[in-house]
């Protein structure tokens, strides 16, 4: 069974192709086909995972080649997939959470007339994402990498009748292209130095090249990862991406696609192991994004944007962990999995709330939804406990491990991660209090109601996973499981005993929760957001997404716009001027030459005579001289 990796991808791909080409007759059952494809892929993935479990640790990697993709001179690319311990976890996450979100979308998109197309895109996304994580070659990975980018673009702009959604899709696509440039350059670097882009070969032979090459390759890979994972400095697209339908935000922009960058870093771990400089950059990027995302999450009143800030921040944690080297890879992946569960859970919960509130996303108009939507409240609450790291929940294990490893690496990095945990507790508590507690601040004609069971069932499953996924950390199972793929981890002892660190983390988290309660629980939040002039600089900056868009505009968009205008002017005036100008000159000269052609024989005769005289005089002059 383990050589069936290709089938995992083929099933949802076939689903997408079927739904996109089948006509309107399939509107009635298209969503069921898509869900079945995703579920079939999950079942196959689960069987393969179990088979992998039964193998010896050294034998848990199966590479299957479908044949040669490119064979040109010295460049040879096999269309090959690797099913190993790392990719198997991803397969389960993508197809598992993916299937739950398919089910949820049946209810969420029930009244959308383009529902079949939506499900086709979801299937396309699942296929592309599986291609990304199963690829055995950077070029095959790039195929999936671009595929998820396309699916993300199509789904962010799914409600294309809204100009804001179309613009957000375009923005996500363009910023992702910037990251893809780094990825493409990384693949070219691989080819230039190793003569191949096979992931295994590049990682095996990284020690044979100089440290500079390893650093360059690492930084290029990080550049690609930053674009896809919305990390600083390519983070600006993620908040706008919330224009897409909420299930899309949950699947693509929280649980799976945006974690592709973390996957890339972990998958290329030998490259980063060979270059401490590149690892340092990964840590820096992770730390900056983790704090920036948390800051933005604190100030947004739009529930989805606040969650998006939180996603950025949590992926920052994963990046940070991945940058810590062998000690952090397993924790990065562990946090990625638990985050996939609780963040998908909360996004779907937010979708359920919006569903009941006539698609209003402003948390200032929520309040007291606890009794109106009990299932959503409890499942969201479990996600909340998991993300702030309440003891016993999955987030408690995964985030604590990262903070411990960060403290062991460098005290300041550890303190940064610790502060992030406190801020996370603050903004999540704020979201919880504004949405489910306090007094009703609903708009008129809004009658919140619990969502149908097709939507709440996935919520319950994801809530259970958020609660119990921590078992993967028991007895260091996840570290041992990932060891064949990420190398042996040598743990350094943190500067403090682990139990002390855990207590400090809990203290910081409690402080965050308490602060949020003082600000939003004890007193009612205003039903209308205070104007920018009335709030502190801290809030203003967060609302403006830390001026990321303004900086992009000033540094890139405006200069490029001016450059384009200058080029268009140059093209019109100089290039076109030369071409049309020379044509005009030739036309004028011919016009002048036409004039002697009068058609009168006698004038021709005069010219002949004149010419003969000139020749005669010339001859005379030559002879006499």
């Amino acid at each position, binding site marked *: 069974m383990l050589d069936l990796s290709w089938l995992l991808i083929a099933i949802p791909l076939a689903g997408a192709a079927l739904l996109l080409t089948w006509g309107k007759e399939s509107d009635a059952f298209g969503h069921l086909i898509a869900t079945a494809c995703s579920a079939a892929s999950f079942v196959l993935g689960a069987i393969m995972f179990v088979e992998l479990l039964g193998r010896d640790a050294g034998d848990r990697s199966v590479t299957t080649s479908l044949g040669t993709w490119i064979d040109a001179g010295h460049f040879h690319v096999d269309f090959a997939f690797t099913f190993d311990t790392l990719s198997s976890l991803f397969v389960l996450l993508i197809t598992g959470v993916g299937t739950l979100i398919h089910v949820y979308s049946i209810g969420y998109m029930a009244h959308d007339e383009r529902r079949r197309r939506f499900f086709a895109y979801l299937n396309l996304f699942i296929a592309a994402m599986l291609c990304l994580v199963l690829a055995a070659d950077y070029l095959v990975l790039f195929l999936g990498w671009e595929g998820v980018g396309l699916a993300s673009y199509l789904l962010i702009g799914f409600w294309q009748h809204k100009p804001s959604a179309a613009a957000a899709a375009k923005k996500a696509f363009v910023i992702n292209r910037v990251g893809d440039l780094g990825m493409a350059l990384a693949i070219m670097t691989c080819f230039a130095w190793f003569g191949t882009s096979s992931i295994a070969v590049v990682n095996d032979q990284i020690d044979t090249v100089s440290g500079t090459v390893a650093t360059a390759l690492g930084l290029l890979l990080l550049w690609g990862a930053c674009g896809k994972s919305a990390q600083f400095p390519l983070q600006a697209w993620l908040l706008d991406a919330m224009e897409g339908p909420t299930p899309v935000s949950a699947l693509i922009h929280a649980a799976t696609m945006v974690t592709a960058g973390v996957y890339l870093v972990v998958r290329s771990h030998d490259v980063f192991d060979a270059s401490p400089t590149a690892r340092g950059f990964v840590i820096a990027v992770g730390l900056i994004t983790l704090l920036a995302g948390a800051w933005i999450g604190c100030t947004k009143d739009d529930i989805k944007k606040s969650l998006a800030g939180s996603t950025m921040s949590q992926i920052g944690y994963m990046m940070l962990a991945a940058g810590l080297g062998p000690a952090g890879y397993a924790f990065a992946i562990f946090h990625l999995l638990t985050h996939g569960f609780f963040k998908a859970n909360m996004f779907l919960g937010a979708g359920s709330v919006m569903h009941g509130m006539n698609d209003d996303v402003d948390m200032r108009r929520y309040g007291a939804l606890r009794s109106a939507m009990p299932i959503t409240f409890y499942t969201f609450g479990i996600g909340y406990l998991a993300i702030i790291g309440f003891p016993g929940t999955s987030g408690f294990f995964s985030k604590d491990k990262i903070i411990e490893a960060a403290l062991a690496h460098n005290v300041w990095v550890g303190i940064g991660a610790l502060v992030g945990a406190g801020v996370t507790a603050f903004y999540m508590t704020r979201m919880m209090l504004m949405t489910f507690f306090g007094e009703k601040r609903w708009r008129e004609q809004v009658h919140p109601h619990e969502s149908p069971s097709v939507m709440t069932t996935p919520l319950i499953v994801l809530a259970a996973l958020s609660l119990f996924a921590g078992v993967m950390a028991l007895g260091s199972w996840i570290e041992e499981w990932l060891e064949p793929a990420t190398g042996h981890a040598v743990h350094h002892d943190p500067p403090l005993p682990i139990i002390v660190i855990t207590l400090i983390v809990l203290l910081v988290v409690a402080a965050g929760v308490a602060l949020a309660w003082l600000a939003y629980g004890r007193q009612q939040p205003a039903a209308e957001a205070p104007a920018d002039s009335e709030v502190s600089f801290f809030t203003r900056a967060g609302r403006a997404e830390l001026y990321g868009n303004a900086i992009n505009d000033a540094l890139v968009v405006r200069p490029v716009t001016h450059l384009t205008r200058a080029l268009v002017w140059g093209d019109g005036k100089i290039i076109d001027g030369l071409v049309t100008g020379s044509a005009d000159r030739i036309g004028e000269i011919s016009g002048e030459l036409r004039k002697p052609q009068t*058609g009168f024989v*006698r004038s021709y*005769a*005069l010219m002949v005579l004149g010419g003969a005289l000139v020749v005669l005089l010339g001859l005379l002059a030559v002879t006499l001289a």
Partner: protein
Amino acid sequence: MTEYITLSTLLFSIGAVGVLVRRNAIIVFMCVELMLNATNLAFVSFARQHGNLDGQVAAFFVMVVAAAEVTIGLAIIVSIYRTRRTTSVDDANLLKA
């Protein structure tokens, strides 16, 4: 000797001016013949002066060419006259830019 060349130059100039100023194709034609015969006179005069036959041979060639040219030229003039009812060279001016 000079008298012959002077006469030849005079005849040639009369012919050339006639070609340039007259409109009637027949007259223009006659002027061309005049120019040809002026050159013939010059050829023969120079041949006599230098005492070899080259110039006289050239004069015979010119006569032959003139005869052929007359044949074709008259044919063209006749056909133009048939279609246009005129022999003015200024009326046959379609070949202009």
